[in-house]
């Protein structure tokens, strides 16, 4: 009766199959379901912040309107484009893995190239953010009790320190997600170099892709809500 057991582990044993799964399909299915659930938690976490944002906006519509004028729409728009492009390159990376033949250098090179492009987009996004943040710092448009823009000659009506509080928390948390995504890209890139990914095993790239799309999606909401209130 021990057949069930030997079957699972015997025969052709894919080196990427963990001991506690019976088949690669089971393993990939689990990884994907797990990732979707994780993304659900990410979305819920950001929803909390969006809710806080809407409450503030409901309380102080004029203030939010006045304060948002001071965000750099061009930089925000540029970053939106950059992230959209990165979504595409990421999707291409996943696609390349899904169709790639095992141990085929040309296919691996494709995965690597698209990952590198996505990484570069992430980098551009962060650099733009850096300049945006620096400008805000220089003008004293800081969160909460650090807010000193009035000393720099900016006269925003109401309680703009709350707007900048929520602005920095939301974009900051999003920025952290971008950085985490970029770190994961390095890891997946190294695994691609090692030849881990092909149509037989692409769960890693696919999950990274899902994560990256969610990070983009959050920005797609952040941009109009923060930069384009009107």
């Amino acid at each position: 009766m021990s057949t069930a057991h030997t079957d699972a582990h015997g025969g052709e044993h894919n080196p990427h199959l963990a001991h506690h799964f019976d088949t690669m399909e089971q393993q990939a299915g689990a990884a994907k379901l797990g990732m979707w659930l994780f993304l659900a938690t990410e979305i819920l976490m950001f929803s909390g912040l969006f809710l806080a944002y809407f409450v503030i906006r409901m309380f102080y519509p004029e203030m939010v309107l006045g304060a948002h004028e001071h965000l750099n729409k061009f930089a925000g728009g540029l970053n939106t484009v950059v992230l959209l492009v990165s979504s595409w390159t990421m999707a291409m990376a996943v696609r390349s893995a899904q169709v790639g033949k095992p141990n085929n250098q040309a296919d691996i090179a494709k995965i690597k190239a698209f990952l590198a492009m996505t990484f570069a987009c992430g980098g551009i996004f962060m650099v733009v953010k850096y300049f945006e943040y620096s400008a805000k710092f220089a003008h004293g448009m800081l969160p909460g009790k650090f807010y000193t823009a009035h000393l720099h000659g900016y006269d925003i009506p109401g309680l703009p320190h709350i707007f900048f509080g929520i602005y920095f928390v939301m974009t900051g948390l999003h920025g952290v997600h971008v950085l985490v995504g970029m770190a994961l890209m390095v890891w997946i890139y190294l695994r691609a170099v090692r030849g881990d990914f092909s149509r037989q095993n692409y769960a890693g790239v696919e999950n990274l892709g899902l994560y990256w799309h969610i990070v983009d999606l959050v920005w797609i909401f952040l941009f109009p809500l923060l930069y384009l209130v009107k």
Partner: protein
Amino acid sequence: MSQQPAHHDNNHGEEPNFYRAKRGIMSWLFTVDHKRLGVMYLASVLLFFLVAGILAIFLRTELLTPAADYVSASTYNQLFTLHGAIMVFLFIIPATPGALGNIFLPLMLGAKDVAFPRLNLLSFWVYSVAAVMLLCTLLLGGLDTGWTFYTPYSTSTGTAAGLAALGVFVAGFSSILTGLNFVVTVHRMRAPGQTWDRLPLFVWAIYATAVIQILATPVLAITVLLVFIERFLGIGIFDPAMGGDPVLFQHFFWFYSHPAVYIMILPGFGIISEMITVHSRKHIFGYKAIALSSVAIAVISFVVWGHHLFVSGQSEVAGIVFSFLTFAVAVPTAIKVFSWVATLYGGSIVYNTPMWYALMFLWTFTIGGLTGVYLAVIAVDVHLHDTYFVVAHFHYVMMGGLVVAFIGGLFHWWPKITGRFYNEALGKLSALLVFIGFNVTFGTQFFLGHQGMPRRYFAYLPEYEAMHRISTYGSWILAAGLFCALFGLLAAFSKNAKKAGNNPWNAMSLEWQTQSPPIEHNFHETPHVTGSPYDFPEIDKSGGVHH
């Protein structure tokens, strides 16, 4: 004995159990074996239960007399805050999923492990980091906000509320990861033949719990993160002095923490279903209703949070809507309670320690649930809110509900976990003492609360002394009972403890079909499931009325 047993060995004679499969401290600290992780969770949660329980005994001792006698006001405030925070975040929420869930979920599914064993290890370590952070608040000025962290008090107090908020944030991650792991495990790792209607109810309960963990915890995470940021950056979202809204925090907090009370109790429901059936040799009554009502509770629990804010200044309409929805959550719970009692009908009931705890649960949890109905009546809650009535209500559901079920579950599965029997006499004595002590401690508090005794008071009007005294005496009996339980369980490790064998209760679910304690890979061969886990051989199939 070999370090790495050959697990493809067809000789089933004496394969080492999971404790012995590997050796050395590292093989524990970095294990990915769900059973070892479960045992480590068990040790940790029991430690925190002990710590928080001892804090509770200090609390009660201070409350023996109306005057301020043993501790100062600020010490008392830290005592109840740490008591509540440790009990909730480090004990009751991780207890059943982390300990019993980890050990038994894969076994009950006939799986070799959870879906993501390394993630499981990560959850444990994240949990440990959170625990260290919460305990470190003791060194950094204590924590005196109450477990609810209401702003603006929590953003203005001089104590270590920032660190505590981060600690809760981290604990939340552990909880999310565990929940995620379990949902995937239940979906993808079931043995052949293990259909959804053949899942043990414990699995259903853990599954419903995991769904709530995934959906609610992120909101808590962001809430406490905002408290943390508020303390350091003063962003002002919750701070009225800066134009923010302190009641918004309460909405955020309870949006998590109300579903969290079902994170606490649902696994308890699962344990009870297993114990009642096995020890009465009866098929569970209303399998579908019990399984689906867990899911119903999980869903409704997301829309009742406002019943904690009836007097906070939320709009009257909101209050009324929340009151209505709160009643709605009582119905699926009632269905479960009735089904358990109906399960006893026509059984052959064995009175051992786990069964005594299960029967005790029906008593204590029902009182807890029914007093929840008082609080759901919005007008009555105006009077009872933040009095000892609420304290009594939530101890009846948490201590009398989950903790009683959990301890019962420990006795029930102890033979499987340790391979040996606990001490039955001590076990039964503990059940008796816990029953008496518990009801004396918290039963009196309903009267206190109805007479207006506010909670979180370290000194009180002398009118309340009599009841407080009785309550304190009760807590000592309760503590004695719990120590009996502890020693009763520890007795399994003594030399002359009886060996348990694979299936001492003649239970049908899969965890009993393997060695006690289980081998490292759970089963010698993947089991095939052919029927309900509640089809006991004693059931009279000969001609009784079938429905």
